[in-house]
């Protein structure tokens, strides 16, 4: 009996340790990124890093201004959001308000396949097929460009937006819709004036999560948008047809080069990674709290 109790205790501890490991992973990420980021900032001032307009970590004269990479990342993210947000929301509305249970059970898994395709494959799609197709519409488009990267990243994040928005729409009680119909409103009116506003926090949370995914996306933007760090102007349409470099693509470039573990270029990898981590973490936290608020409304 005592032996059994000891065994129960040991198993309890073992299981607890595996759960605690996830906290260890988070701490590991923060410590790893932090340690090398600090070394990086001993050599390059944070002011130069965050306000510098030139990124050239491996070619002399070295310069470590992250702004061109941030600009590139923002452009891809804005483009992807412009596709995924309206398309994802409309899909969510279709699946939750119009589709029959049967149609939904077919369309939803099909939509989820979009998120399951490896990102290297999306990069290939953009570079090999979408850019040549866009060349027909915009003859001066470069082989590497923001537009086709945005298109594939947008397609990739549609399911995230659609699926979380759909959950939010379905959580809106039937009685609210029926009240709308009783007042003589038609379906579209009920959707836009009652259902969507009631589910707004969940919908916004899905947008933020989708955007955070677009910021961290790597292979598709590395292959399709190129590796040319340039400070672009997102409002200039011509810049959408040119190559850029995102934060993640810059990390891939350094990862593929043979810079040594002690060089500043290597340390800059961690500085970008840390910036990226903080950005996506902030977005995820915001999205989590918005979603939590929406959950409580109908309980």
């Amino acid at each position: 009996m005592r032996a059994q109790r000891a065994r129960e205790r040991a198993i309890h501890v073992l299981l607890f340790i595996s759960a605690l490991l996830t906290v260890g992973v988070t701490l590991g990420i923060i410590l790893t990124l932090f340690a090398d980021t600090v070394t990086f900032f001993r050599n390059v001032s944070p002011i130069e890093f965050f306000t510098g307009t030139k990124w050239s970590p491996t070619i002399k004269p070295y310069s470590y201004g992250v702004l061109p990479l941030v600009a590139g990342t923002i452009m891809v993210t804005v483009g992807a959001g412009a596709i995924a947000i309206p398309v994802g929301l409309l899909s969510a509305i279709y699946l939750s308000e119009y589709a029959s249970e049967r149609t939904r059970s077919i369309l939803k898994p099909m939509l989820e396949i979009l998120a399951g395709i490896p990102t290297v494959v999306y990069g290939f799609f953009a570079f090999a097929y979408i850019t040549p197709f866009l060349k027909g519409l915009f003859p001066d488009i470069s082989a590497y460009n923001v537009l086709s990267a945005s298109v594939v990243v947008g397609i990739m994040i549609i399911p995230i937006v659609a699926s979380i928005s759909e959950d939010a729409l379905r959580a809106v009680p039937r009685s609210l819709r029926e009240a709308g119909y009783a007042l003589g409103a038609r379906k579209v009116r009920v959707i836009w004036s009652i259902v969507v506003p009631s589910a707004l926090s969940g919908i916004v949370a899905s947008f933020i999560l989708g955007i955070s995914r677009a910021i961290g996306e790597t292979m598709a933007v590395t292959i399709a948008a190129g590796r040319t760090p340039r400070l672009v102007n997102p409002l200039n349409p011509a810049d959408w047809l040119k190559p850029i470099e995102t934060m993640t693509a810059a990390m891939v470039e350094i990862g593929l080069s043979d810079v040594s573990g002690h060089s500043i270029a290597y340390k800059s990898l961690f500085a970008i990674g840390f910036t990226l981590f903080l950005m996506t973490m902030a977005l995820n936290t915001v999205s989590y709290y918005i979603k939590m608020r929406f959950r409580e409304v109908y309980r």
Partner: protein
Amino acid sequence: MRGEEVREKLFMLLALLATLFGIVILAFLLAFTFYEALPWLDWQFLTSPPSRFPERAGIYPSLVGSVMAIALVGVFSVPLGVGAAIYLEEYARRSRIAKLIEINISNLAAVPSIVYGLLGLGLFVSTLHLRPGIVLVGALTLTLLILPIIIVAAQEALRSVPDSLREASIGLGATRWQTVRNVVLPSAMPGILTGVILALSRAIGETAPLIMIGAATSIFTPPKSIFSTYSPLPMQIFMWTDMPKEEFLHGLAPAGIIVLLAVMLSMNAFAVYLRNRYARKLRR
């Protein structure tokens, strides 16, 4: 009144088109890929090492490497992920620490995969001094990456086991662990396995974190052990999209993609089969 009816119908059509938008584009892109891959997909492609000459190039070493790494990921991630899920669902329900761990897991799921690559680099290469780019380091890094996915899937499977089963077992005098091992786990197993296979099929397509830990761009012999360097299949595809010769982009890369997707698809199909068998069993 008529105009309004038309507007109603038009909006429904728009919503339907939006739902089909991504699916249709993906279908087209896959069709192009398959069409370009077809002439290159043969036995020689599957059994040859990569080469500068497109007609002699193949994916054998990277396919073996990827399969080895994924098997290893399974070995590492299943006990850890399922263990964590059992703790959260069966032992620590609704405690504060459980809630904290839970929030942490949802945060981890949102960390970009390339950052996991940096973690792997810092943890396994810089700290533990393992050789960069070996199968073991790749597998460990991917394990950390998919651990949150496995935990969430396993939690859902455990949650779907009715409490009456647990109570019956406890009522017969079984201890908590005996209940978990003999009653809860067997009923949750198919659901857990489904989640694990789906997570593994995602891991096999990951590229960015493996670039960070220094996976090779081309390897000419399959890895002999878990301490050999390897070139994961998606990495090989990435290299082919970057080659100057046209045949690499419009031939070998599509062929590699079709093989990668075929591997992922069969894993997914297996997961769906398990899920269906499980659903039938529950109904009985």
